[in-house]
């Protein structure tokens, strides 16, 4: 139930107190909370090696944002950048930097219906590492702004 190099101790302690379980309406017979379930992970059957077909079904009607903290090696930005490029959507412009708080926050490459962004110096959990930039990014996406 442990993610390597990630300290989930505080949230584990918090969510397993009786007062918090009561506040969240968790029945007594429900097991203790853990950040990940080894049982689920070990018994999970993966059925898709690539999401390409599903993206091709979705993109004509719906828009997408793919963002990557560039310090992550588990799902590295190069792979997702390559995946987005492989969809062969029409490019709307060249790859360019994006700005948050007067600093370069990463780089963005916009295509028709899908945007690929890197978030500079963020790890796997982007909203944890660069919360302000992440909020600006999602706000712009929800509002359909560049």
């Amino acid at each position, binding site marked *: 139930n442990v993610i390597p190099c990630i300290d989930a101790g505080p949230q584990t302690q918090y969510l397993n107190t009786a007062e918090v379980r009561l506040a969240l309406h968790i029945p007594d017979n429900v097991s203790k909370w853990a950040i990940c379930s080894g049982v689920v992970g070990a018994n999970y059957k993966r059925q898709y090696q690539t999401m390409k077909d599903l993206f091709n079904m979705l993109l004509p009607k719906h828009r997408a944002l793919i963002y990557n903290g560039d310090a992550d090696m588990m799902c*590295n930005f190069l792979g997702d950048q390559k995946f987005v490029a492989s969809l062969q959507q029409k490019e709307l412009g060249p790859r360019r930097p994006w700005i948050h708080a007067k600093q370069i926050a990463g780089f963005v490459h916009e295509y028709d219906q899908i945007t690929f962004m890197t978030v500079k110096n963020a790890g796997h959990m982007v909203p944890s590492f660069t919360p302000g930039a992440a909020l600006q990014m999602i706000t712009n996406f929800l509002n359909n702004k560049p």
Partner: protein
Amino acid sequence: QPAEDEVKSLPGVFNPQLSSRQYSGYLSASNTIKLHYWFVESERDPVNDPLVLWMNGGPGCSSLDGYLSELGPYLINPDGTTLTPNPNSWSKVANVIFLEAPAGVGFSYSDDQNYTTSDNETAKNNYLALLDFFAKFPNMAKKPFFITGESYGGVYVPTLSVKVMANASINFQGFAIGNGLLDSVMNTNTAVYYAYYHAIIGEDVWAKLQQYCCKDGKCNFAAPPNQQCQDLVITVQNTMMGIGINPYDVTGDCAGGVPGHSSLQKQNTFLKHFFEPSFLKALKNPKGNGSVSFDSN
């Protein structure tokens, strides 16, 4: 809204008034499955702001970590007992649902305690849970709706989105994925380039990788064409995942310090979903004869 699910107060929050209304309870999926949700109304304009579903990955990891350490309205402090308001919560601009899925994750459960599942079954149950959410919160049913997630959410999000897309009664607008697993062959191949570009493997190993794994400028680390390449890929994998570098943040620290070998072995539960099998042989057989001498150590 279901009054019985409303969160009246949160332990560890010093201001008795929460920043917006919150609800926590269970959504019904198929058969005996009950998925736990924690819903946070927008702090800005819950009536007019969009609705966002957030899912952490794993597979098998809880979205409550997303609430408490990433984008929720309150973040956990190191003491494990108090919370701090998050000025950058996504609930500043949207109504956000944190869904714990599949069953067996976090507080979600199945009465029959069968926690074997798959991508399609997870998508089906997430969809049914979402329909139950809209039944509980009819005021959210017509809002612009976005599905978001992280990591193995790269699979959860598109598989659920395809089901939602087919339901015209849902005002589905789009989806966002952070550091997502979108293609395991691409993720495996690019991981080796990433390791080289970030000085995690040195010139000596890189030169050998070029010699044994690449032809005419194309490299195949995900399906090594020969034993020499396979051995080199094992060396790279062991360096990336097996010596204490934080694979989630290569420029940061590894919480708890460099872990022992036995704890590194446990990573395989999750790593097997992210990389091609060729890439994981070092973890399966750490003392095998596949490792190459590594001068740059």
